[in-house]
């Protein structure tokens, strides 16, 4: 297998964002959207919806107002790349938003920034002011405001995010309708992750080919990874997609990696025996960037318990499978550990988590089974004894 561990520099490369924007404004919206579709870019927040299609849907809607929202509510445990992108290349994010606004016909953009990143506010406001001045010079009607979160992981879910922006509890909405037809304040809205917007900008600059040629069929291009846990080199790395977990662990592991949690608390745990045949990407295990490595000194029970407690607290609480299911999983593994319930109770809980996967209202509840089942399957003994 070819080595896909190529480090890439599309995101953090300092470019003339205004030049890219100027160039883009010379082209039609459809041309740009087609390039984004052609590139194969999929949302970098984790869910992986094709970005170009999202823009196309939003563009095709008739409305007196549309919105661009930059989702900077990065809350997935193990993910910190959006903060880094906003810190290092804020101008590229803003230009990506403007580009999206141009493509879909929106004149207003919002950055939904998690409260934990409030320290970025002065810098971002400054960057926005500067950017607005540049847009004014170009007579381009687009403005950006920041909405702050207040500590709620579920607001990273795009419809919960919009509820929060509307001043309500951040409870995910029923879908359909999807945000591209009825989003913020009921208007067509494109919600894109910070990283996605920067990639879109780079695709507008470079054309789709360079991006498309990287990665694999379903997972084109590169991706910014947040590497943490038992690793000598924690940090942010932009890597070409398509690598195996083995390649990843060879690069980042400490020589004693027993498991990698791919995709954060809502992602999958992969055990050493599967590193070789696990592809990181939409064909294998997708990730919003979170890669947490664990060596043999770590208790998988503690890790699972930590993830489940996180979900139990961060569930919005509105739907039954997620609200009560998370509590059952947390208390269930504890009951098994303490011998209050027999080991076979884990199978009941796995069935329950299957129900959570298919019957929960939003991605939060639907993905709790990912860590639960993968950790139970791989490390059943550690959970019981």
């Amino acid at each position, binding site marked *: 297998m070819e080595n896909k561990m190529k480090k890439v520099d599309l995101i953090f490369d300092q470019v003339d964002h205004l030049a890219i924007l100027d160039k883009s404004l010379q082209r039609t919206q459809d041309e740009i959207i087609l390039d984004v579709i052609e590139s194969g870019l999929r949302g970098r927040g984790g869910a992986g919806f094709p970005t170009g299609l999202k823009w196309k849907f939003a563009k095709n809607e008739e409305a007196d107002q549309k919105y661009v929202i930059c989702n900077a509510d990065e809350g997935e445990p193990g993910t910190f790349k959006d903060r880094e992108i906003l810190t290092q290349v804020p101008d590229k994010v803003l230009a990506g938003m403007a580009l999206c606004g141009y493509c879909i016909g929106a004149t207003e953009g919002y950055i939904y920034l998690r*409260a934990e990143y409030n320290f970025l506010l002065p810098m971002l406001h400054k960057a926005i002011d500067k950017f607005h001045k540049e847009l004014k010079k170009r007579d381009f009607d687009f403005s950006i405001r920041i909405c702050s979160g207040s500590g709620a992981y579920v607001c990273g879910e795009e419809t919960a995010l919009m509820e929060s922006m509307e*001043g309500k509890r951040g409870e995910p909405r029923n879908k359909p309708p999807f945000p591209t037809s009825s989003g913020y304040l009921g208007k067509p809205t494109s919600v894109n992750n910070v990283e996605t917007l920067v990639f879109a900008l780079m695709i507008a600059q470079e054309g789709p080919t360079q991006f498309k040629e990287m990665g694999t069929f379903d997972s084109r291009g590169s991706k910014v990874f947040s590497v943490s846990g038992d690793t000598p080199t924690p940090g942010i790395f932009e890597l070409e997609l398509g690598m195996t977990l083995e390649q990843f662990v060879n690069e980042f592991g400490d020589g004693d990696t027993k498991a990698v949690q791919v995709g954060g608390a809502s992602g999958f745990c992969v055990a050493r025996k599967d590193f070789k045949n696990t592809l990181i990407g939409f064909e294998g295990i997708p990730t919003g960037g979170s890669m947490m490595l664990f060596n043999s000194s770590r208790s998988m029970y503690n890790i699972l318990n930590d993830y489940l407690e996180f979900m139990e607290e961060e569930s919005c609480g509105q739907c039954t499978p997620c609200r009560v299911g998370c509590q059952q999983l947390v208390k269930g593994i504890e009951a098994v550990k303490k011998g209050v319930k027999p080991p076979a109770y884990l199978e009941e809980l796995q069935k329950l988590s299957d129900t959570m996967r298919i019957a929960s209202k939003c991605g939060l509840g639907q993905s709790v089974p990912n860590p639960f089942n993968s950790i139970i399957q791989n490390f059943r003994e550690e959970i019981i004894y």
Partner: protein
Amino acid sequence: MTRIEELVKEQADKHGRQRTSLMPILQAVVGSEHYLSEDALVAIARELDLSSADVFGTATFYTFLDTVPRGKYVIRVCKTITCHMKGKDEVIGALEDMLKVKLGGTTTDGKFSLLQANCLGWCHKGPVMLVNDEVYPEISAEKAVEIIGGYLKKG
């Protein structure tokens, strides 16, 4: 008009009286008062023509919108797995000893609240804590005590 009512009115004048203004107003009141008192919630509900239960329900959804009194400096130590692995418990223990307060509590002088938070987004540089909006990555028990010592001096 009480001081709180004035503050709320000032914020409503600034952010507007639409439902979309609720979050910024709640955030601003927490920013200045450290928490949302009953009086503050009532004033906000009145100013925005909302039910107070609705405002309370919205506020309690968000971890950072406290509805119980908090200190001038709210310390939030990240409790998520990688910070856990890198010793957040030691940090919390040291701060508990230093401030003579249990986790979740507020010092008697009303200066510090010591809380845990879910992932703060610094997993590569854990343990990490926030003191109000300021972030302190790569701390240790000693370093945390030193940082909070700085706030103590600041008053």
